[in-house]
């Protein structure tokens, strides 16, 4: 890479950051994500993982918040705060890993469909449209039921059910990139399909996909919470949805145990909202047409 190219990239990056920074809500979102990211990384430091073990719990069950347990305890006497801290890790891992799967599948299908056009495109996009029709939550439920409950399976289920949106977006972008003059130049210079796709199309499609990725993460985290709430999560790796499942199952609402119900939901809302805000801002910065829109 030449020095000029690097300089240009640095200039683009700093312009991007300046644009992004002008969206105040996005900075708030970024702050929230940073906070939860740190909690996830240092989960074991913040709260002893032994606190997750039902057999080692010594505190009374369904206890209200106190000095020892800031957010009270669950039906087994485990600290809700400890569960929340370790749940952060699970929710973020599932959200990010599932999104990665969805993005890879979606991008590959989208680029192939857009690049080859014709027969390949109508087949691949037809398939995508079909998958868009299958209602997401029921499909995820069915798959999770059949595969069995484990962290990896949850990731796979959410990943392979979330790609059609990405594929459509990437295909549309690829189509517009393919018509640009430099693509003709790349073809004229003898660039093969692989070269064209990875060196020319992918880098041009990526910025918009980035905004979409961030929005997909928020949906993936919501999906994880829902599946765990329905008892399809990994029981050995408590997530926020798992806490809510336990709260519901032990009648926490009718007993007025707000500390058992409120905090996990607030965590979900905060993280999902943060990803949404960051994603919307990215979209606005990267897609000038939307910028005038709002």
């Amino acid at each position: 890479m030449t020095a000029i190219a690097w300089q240009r990239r640095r200039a683009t990056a700093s312009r991007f950051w300046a644009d992004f920074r002008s969206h105040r809500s996005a900075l708030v979102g970024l702050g929230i994500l940073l906070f939860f990211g740190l909690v996830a990384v240092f989960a074991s430091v913040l709260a002893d993982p032994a606190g997750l073990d039902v057999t080692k719990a010594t505190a009374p069950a369904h206890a209200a918040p106190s000095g020892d347990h800031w957010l009270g305890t669950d039906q087994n006497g485990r600290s809700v705060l400890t569960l929340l801290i370790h749940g952060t890790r699970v929710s973020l891992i599932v959200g990010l890993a599932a999104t990665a799967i969805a993005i890879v599948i979606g991008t590959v299908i989208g680029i192939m469909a857009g690049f080859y056009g014709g027969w390949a495109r109508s087949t691949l996009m037809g398939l995508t449209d079909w998958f868009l029709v299958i209602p997401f939550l029921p499909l995820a439920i069915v798959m999770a039921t059949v595969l069995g409950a484990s962290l990896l399976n949850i990731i796979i289920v959410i990943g392979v059910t979330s790609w059609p949106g990405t594929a459509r977006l990437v295909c549309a972008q690829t189509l517009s990139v393919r018509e640009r003059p430099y693509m003709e130049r790349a073809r004229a210079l003898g660039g093969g399909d692989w070269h064209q796709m990875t060196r020319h199309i992918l880098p041009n499609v990526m910025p918009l996909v980035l905004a979409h990725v961030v929005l997909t993460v928020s949906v993936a985290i919501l999906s994880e919470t829902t599946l765990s709430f329905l008892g399809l999560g990994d029981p050995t790796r408590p997530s926020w949805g798992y806490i809510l499942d336990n709260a519901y199952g032990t009648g926490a609402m009718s007993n007025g145990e707000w500390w058992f119900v409120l905090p996990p939901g607030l965590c979900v809302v905060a993280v999902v909202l943060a990803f949404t805000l960051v994603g919307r801002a990215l979209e606005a910065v990267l897609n000038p047409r939307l910028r005038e829109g709002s």
Partner: protein
Amino acid sequence: MRGYVLKKVGWSIGTLLFVVVFNFFLFRLLPGDPIGLYTRGRNMSPDQLIRLRQQLNRPIGEQFITYLSNPFASTINSTRFNRPVWEIIGERVWPTVLLVGTAVLVAALAGVWLGIRSGWRRGSRFDRVTTGTTNTLYAMPEFWVGMMLIMWLPFFPSGGINSVGVTGFLPTVVDTAWHLVLPVTALAIVYLAEYTSIMRASLVDELRQDYLTLARAKGLREDLVRRRHAVPNALLPTMTLIFLNLGFVIGGAITVEYVFSWPGLGLLTAEALRGPDIPLLQAVFLLFSLGVIVFTLLADLLYAVLDPRVSTQ
């Protein structure tokens, strides 16, 4: 117009076939012993097991044909209820229609109104507050909203569709409406966020259009410009999207029905999970997919009726 309708109907039929085929293979090709899947957690007589094994040992093509001939009966009874699955589903459809229909109606009316107000004065305080609230509501899992409502509004019934001992037509209707309040609120809050942002975006798209300048040049008051020109145009994509969404909305009702023990398809799905009751799950899944296809088709047809650019071709 006729060509458009034929094209859409053709697409729906193609998609229907795909969904049926997908539904069949999803449950056959996933890893694990099919007998195990069909009987997990269930006491079955050796006699039943042998019959089941015979069915599952036939060539997959033959099984597929049998399946195609009657996808809902699925030849195997529900393992949980020990009755044909379509019979169970038939009992559960109406509560879901009542719940989802009410929630969507409420959310659509309120969402369209909010979307118009915030989109028309975009950037205003009202718009910023609405957009902020919408984003937050959108981030809430609907079942959590339901749990919070149960916790904070304990004077409303927290589950079921009717109280025990209520008889007579009118008391039953009133009682059902009373039971509907919380689940409808939980669902409507989340849809409201979606519909508001759809309507707002559609209206903002129209704001830049030249025909609004013409309407103003004619001397129309701003509220007439909005009511007569901007809103009818913006409602076209919104109505279509709301209809399109209806199919997916039913899937979203699963957790809310579960939380409120609302005896609909969503609760049935949650019940089918515990077990799991694979034949029932398969049939419910097929029904949900079918719902999406039907509502997609309806949305396309609605668009054709509402938009003179399609209907007068």
